[in-house]
């Protein structure tokens, strides 16, 4: 499903250039649950942003569903993204002014789903995430675990081929964190492909495969693949 080869990413400021991703290569197959681990600054989030088509790479190849997308325009990336990829963030990133229902619905609005279908889909996914009873609440009225459930619901509502999770338990206590991890595992068991960035060895154990990244000072050269 994903095949990256020699992927490169630099950050340049006025004075110096930092290499964030240095010729990194790996593959993720359909139905896999892969964790990416590494200390802060190792480039995991940068990698996830590129995999999620939120950011562009400076070199290398990125094949998504058999298509080379490395040179896709913002518009093309956006289209590809909204139909194929769901995101779960550490800080949930729910819009405070929208209710649970509306937050989830937003993802369907941008993919152009009709209103009646939207209602059904949102209700289904909220039911599945067991958060239906909170559908009219605003994010601030929910616990962290509940907020993350809403975020997962939003990530799922478009039936994405790939779910990207960026430290999904980072803002949660361990009990709620485990619940979220079990939720992701369940989704994986139902066929979703998941790539998760995490600091937690505990969380990583839920996945099938761990890709370790290391930032040697400024260069991230080593890709450690460890089944």
């Amino acid at each position, binding site marked *: 499903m994903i095949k990256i080869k020699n992927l490169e990413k630099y950050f340049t400021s006025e004075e110096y250039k930092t290499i964030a991703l240095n010729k990194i290569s790996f593959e993720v197959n359909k139905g896999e649950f892969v964790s990416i681990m590494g200390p802060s600054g190792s480039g995991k989030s940068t990698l996830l942003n590129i995999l999620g088509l939120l950011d562009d790479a400076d070199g290398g190849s990125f094949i998504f569903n058999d298509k080379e997308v490395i040179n896709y325009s913002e518009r093309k990336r956006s289209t590809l993204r909204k139909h194929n990829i769901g995101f779960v963030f550490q800080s949930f*990133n729910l819009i405070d002014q929208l209710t649970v229902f509306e937050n989830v619905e937003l993802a369907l609005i941008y993919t152009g789903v009709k209103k009646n279908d939207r209602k059904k889909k949102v209700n289904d996914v909220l039911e599945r995430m067991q958060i239906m009873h909170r559908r009219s609440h605003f994010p601030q009225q929910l616990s962290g675990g509940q907020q993350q459930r809403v975020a997962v619901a939003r990530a799922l509502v478009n039936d994405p081929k790939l779910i990207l999770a960026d430290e999904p338990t980072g803002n949660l206590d361990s009990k709620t964190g485990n619940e979220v991890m079990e939720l992701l595992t369940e989704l994986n068991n139902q066929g979703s492909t998941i790539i998760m960035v995490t600091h937690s060895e505990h969380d990583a154990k839920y996945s099938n495969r761990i890709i370790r990244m290391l930032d040697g000072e400024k260069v991230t050269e080593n890709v450690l693949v460890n089944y």
Partner: protein
Amino acid sequence: MIRNYFKLTWRNIKDNKMLSFLNILGLSSGLFCFLLIYLWISSENSIDKYHTNINQLYSVYLTNSEGTPFDYGTPSLLYKELKLKVPEIEAVTAMRNNSSNSTFSNGEKVLKQEGNFVSKDFFSMFSFNILEGNKAEALSSPNAIAISKEMAELFFGDPKSAIGQSLTYENSKALKVSIVYELSSPNSSEKSAFYLPFNSLFADNPWMNEWKNLGTYTFVQFTKGADVNLVEQKLKSFLLDYNLGLEIKFQPYGDRYLYANIKNGGGKIEYVRLFGIIAFLIMLIASINFMNLASAGSIKRAKEIGVRKVLGAGKNSLIAQFLGEAILLSLSSLFFALIFIALVLPIFNQITDKNIDLANLPLATWVMVFVITIMTGLLSGSYPAFLLSSFKVTDIFKKKIDTSVRTKWIRKGLVVFQFTISVVFISCMIIISQQIDYVKNKDIGFDRENLLAITLSEDLQQNYAAFKSGALQISGIKSVTKTSHIPLGEYGTSPEVIWNGKADDDGSLFTGMVGSLDFTETYGVELLMGRGLIHNNPDNIEYLINETAMKQMKMEQPLGQPLSFWGNSGTIVGVVKDFHFSSLKESIFPLIIRSEGYSEFNIAFIKYDTGNIQQTLTALESLHSNLNPAFPFEYRFIDSEYDQLYKSESTFYKLSTYFSILAILISCLGLFGLVIFTAEQKTKEIGIRKVLGASVFTITSLITRDFIKLILAGIVIGTPMAWYFMNNWLSNYEYRIDMPWWVFGLTGALIISIALFTISYESIKAAIANPVKSLRNE
């Protein structure tokens, strides 16, 4: 999607109450000014445009042979000749204003009314609602009178009973009401209570037969499709046949109201333009507030933008969303603006002498109001929309968006711009008020204080001697004279002056008026040579001239020299120091005052003591009714009439004062919002500084310093601009103040104080906050 935006906008308004309040208040105030001015401008623009034949109606004016516009005054016989000789002209009317109000009586009822003399075609050219009578016969008989609905109601109760009734004109002439009309639109510059046949004027005013005497207005109606420029070309030498070296030109009748100053193509249009600029600038200030507050606050929206982008929102859809929000906000501001407008409209109408009614606005105006509002939303929303939609998702989630740096320069520039405008507004406003004061209090060469004018109707003209001696016996009355004009208005001019040594090609124009015994004393005019007028003998006419006339005639020893004005030979007996007899915008014209005249010789001037004016007036009234029982007693105070000359200036000043105050208030509103954001952004810095021991004063100045710099920049840029504009404006006046430099200092001080006041509250609040709290928040 749209519903989603609506919901979100509404919830954003609710969640950011302060920001929304500032935004809506600013935009409503801006829209309020803009729409009010727009309503006024569209009302001004609609004046006189309602006539059915408006595209064919033109005013005649004359130019000299070089094409320099002269005046609307034309020869009184021109209308007949034009109709006779110019096939492109379908209809013509002459018009003369009555120099003062006319007295009408019917039985016991005696009333003064203001009206015009017009010729036969008048009612077919201009649109009126004819309530009673036949339009074609309105003025066909010499003793016909057309009266307005209001006048009919005054005399006869209603239009129906007025028709065919008789009215006595000036206690002598019996007239018969031929038609009763009503203005077909309130947007008319012509508001006569009656119209009398123009023909009837010739008998009493033989000078009207002379082509050289100008002063009658002529209006023409061209045939459909006539080429007016071509007709002007054809008529280039038309007046030469009547020994008049002037050329005929046509001005569209619809332009006459706004472009009445044909000499320089100006008139009320100048105020329309000025207010248009003011409206636009105020709207810009309000929009800038919105832009600044929205961009300063954009950090708060960053997460939302990030989420939307992740979920697939394109740049365009985000731009549309933020523009939509801005439009929604401006539409809600429109709601408040309209409420404000409805509240102040009565006062506004009073100040501007208008009849604007929100309930009766044409559909087109409403459409424009909405278009303006939406444009305002687009303008205000454009910068935030492009700014916010350009955020990169990865930056947002890494919290790398530092809007304070990114947009700082634009925001600073916009604040400088706002205060530049405020500086210009305020200094201009003060300078205009100085000039108006100067004009109102200027020594104009005659003493307009304690001077009363009374129209001498029929009987009083014959009994003037009795009136004068009677008046002089009333306590408080110092002197009495009579003249032909009130020395504040438009005078006719004439080249028909002959003096010794006049060159053949000398076409100098002179203004003429008629004076009498005690003229110089009553007017308080200074005599430079000779004496005042004494005799009133048609065989021995005496002339007074002013200094300018003396210079014009190049006379060194004018006393005793023969002079002929309008064919009346006499002798110059004195020279008076120049005095102003029209607006100070005009320079003093050569003036000839003669001791005997025609029937226009009809205004008595009375100089009184500042004592019990009411008592003096009561005594004068009883004297008047004894001598002239058929006419109502009517008097005018010359000083208040003088103030009327500057009415448009005064109105302009009043309105621009209000608008300037609003402009600076709106600017401060924006400033207030920015200070809140700055204080928020600097919370951490303030906390650290406080922990390290900074005083409240140091921290307050840390926040205010940057803003004061911006305001100073505004002052530095605005001052020369204001100087430039005001120097231009003042040059319109023949008599003007010197540029008062202190105004700029005062403006600067005023703006800095207001701004400091605005800033200080939030700054001090930030400075005295508990540092532990601000650091914990970080």
